[in-house]
């Protein structure tokens, strides 16, 4: 029994990796669809990271885009202004995102902020980040953004290679997620999500585990944000805006199922398909996201994974 304990997790991860690795073959070499596929992986990876923060420890971080942007901008600026190699600056970006996320979490837990105040503080941080990027025009070029073509590692130039690199990032995120969940921390997260007060009484260091979840999640968000900065060819505030990252990630996670391994992946794939369907509507797609979000929050809060679990009697992680 012990050997099979994580069988479902391993099988799921392998299936996810194989299926996603085969996606480019099905696209028939179309550059447009390959780009959409790559963006799907990026948003899925964001959702995996956000899942650790929000899905497991109920910390509503409305600053996924801002954290990713912090890592992205720091990394790119250190390359352009100081001439460092991107291999050195990406870890710096990741570290700064992790520290920021950890600090938000630590302060919120220490001050006993409820979910709503964590939401407000991080939302305000998102706005501050956005305004700083717009305001520090000499450094960041404001809305025009910075051209990152040819700056980053060559493997991140758009194309088939970058698809697999980003798939690698996603799989590493899933692996970290799995390792975290099977460790002591995972047990603590589940206890905290069920009842924070009871967890504290049972001797779990709630502060430590919440900060851990926030830092690991933010580090993963930062990693994706920094990689995206080089893949996208340019960065500007819109790339990391609340509307273009946080809302998508929230909808993705709600769609797939919070607190599950497969949820963010399923959500990411489904959201990309939906997004392609509503793309011809132009302006109206914002409306569609809004409606989707309300419907999901109200009626479908446990996501696809829990529906699948009920339909087929297989354990889905």
């Amino acid at each position, binding site marked *: 029994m012990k050997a099979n304990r994580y069988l479902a997790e391993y099988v799921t991860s392998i299936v996810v990796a194989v299926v996603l690795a085969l996606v480019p073959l099905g696209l028939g070499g179309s550059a447009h669809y390959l780009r959409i596929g790559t963006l799907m992986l990026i948003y899925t990876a964001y959702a995996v990271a956000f899942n650790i923060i929000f899905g497991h420890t*109920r910390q*509503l971080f409305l600053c996924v885009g801002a954290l990713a942007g912090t890592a992205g901008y720091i990394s790119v600026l250190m390359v352009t202004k100081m001439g460092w190699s991107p291999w050195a600056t990406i870890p710096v970006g990741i570290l700064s995102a992790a520290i920021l996320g950890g600090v938000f979490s630590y*302060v919120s837990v220490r*001050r006993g*902020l*409820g*979910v*709503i*105040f964590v*939401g*407000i*503080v991080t*939302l*305000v*941080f998102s*706005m*501050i980040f956005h*305004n*700083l990027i*717009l*305001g520090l025009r000499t450094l960041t070029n404001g809305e025009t953004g910075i051209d990152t073509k040819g700056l980053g590692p060559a493997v991140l130039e758009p194309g088939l290679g970058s698809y697999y690199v980003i798939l690698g990032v996603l799989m590493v995120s899933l692996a970290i997620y799995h390792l975290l969940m099977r460790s002591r921390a995972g047990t603590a997260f589940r206890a905290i999500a069920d009842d924070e007060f009871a967890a504290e009484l049972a001797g779990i260091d709630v502060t430590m585990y919440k900060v851990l979840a926030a830092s690991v999640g933010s580090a993963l968000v930062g990693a994706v944000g920094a990689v995206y900065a080089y893949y996208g060819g340019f960065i500007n505030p819109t790339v990391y805006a609340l*509307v273009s990252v946080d*809302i998508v990630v*929230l909808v993705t996670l709600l769609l797939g199922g919070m607190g599950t391994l497969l949820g963010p992946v399923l959500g990411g794939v489904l959201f990309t398909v939906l997004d392609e369907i509503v793309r011809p509507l*132009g*302006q*109206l*797609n*914002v*409306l*569609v*996201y*809004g*409606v*989707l*979000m*309300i419907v999901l*929050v*109200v009626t479908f809060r446990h996501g696809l994974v829990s529906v699948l679990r009920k339909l087929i009697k297989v354990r889905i992680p």
Partner: protein
Amino acid sequence: MIAILIDGIVQGLQLSLMAVGITLIYGLGGVLNLAHGQFAVVGGIAAALCLEAGVNPLVACAIGILSAGAFGLAVDRTLLLPAYRSAGEERLLLGLLITLGLSFVVNGYLDYKFPNISLTLKLPTPSFEVGGITVRTASALAASIAIVAFVLLFAFLKGTLLGKVIRSIIQNEVGAGLCGINPGRIRTLIVTLSAMMAGLGGVVQGLFSSLGTEMGNELTSFALIVAVVGGVRSVNGTLAAGVLLGIVNAFASYYVGAYLTLIILLGTAVFTILLRPEGLFASRT
């Protein structure tokens, strides 16, 4: 100097008009309304549409405010019901996410349907002089509208039995229920009233400069900052914070530029939450 001060106070009053709705809805319904700016935009755009159809400006504004109220009523009776059914953190989270989704629905719809409509109200005399200071008629009018609205609100909250009922729910919903008060109906009333005040704020914005369909999020964030700094459960605090931040905003925009100002305001909000979560001017409602 004095001109900037007056400007700041007027702006602050307008911000308070919006923020007080967030305060009341949060205090009574336990829902942090992230679509509050959109209520104002709905009101303003409705007024603009009436103006375009050749309706008398005063009537158009009244229609705008009423439509904001009707919109608020509809949202309260339909979308927010699932949030009201749950309690505690769950309700806060549901309310937050539902209104966030609602703000996107309103933004998307208005941008699509009325991309080029904005509300601009022109007054016959642009400015007049009092004791050597030139005052914009729009500012004077906006300030008086806001002050009248606040006097009416305070008279309602402090002077009437219904106001007492409302304050009792803000203090303790369960206790109020035990005294035979039906929180659901009062909540609907307050959401409608708050939406109307937001609509008024939108119309006032049209008086100052202009109100377009894309301004919802901006109005929401300013109102949110004011509500947070004033204490999300205190009406007095919201008014004081609105005026204070309005003055800070006016002086800072004049001396250090618009972008640093916004960061100062946002920073104030963060530090208020961290240092005094109950608000800078927390006192009884």
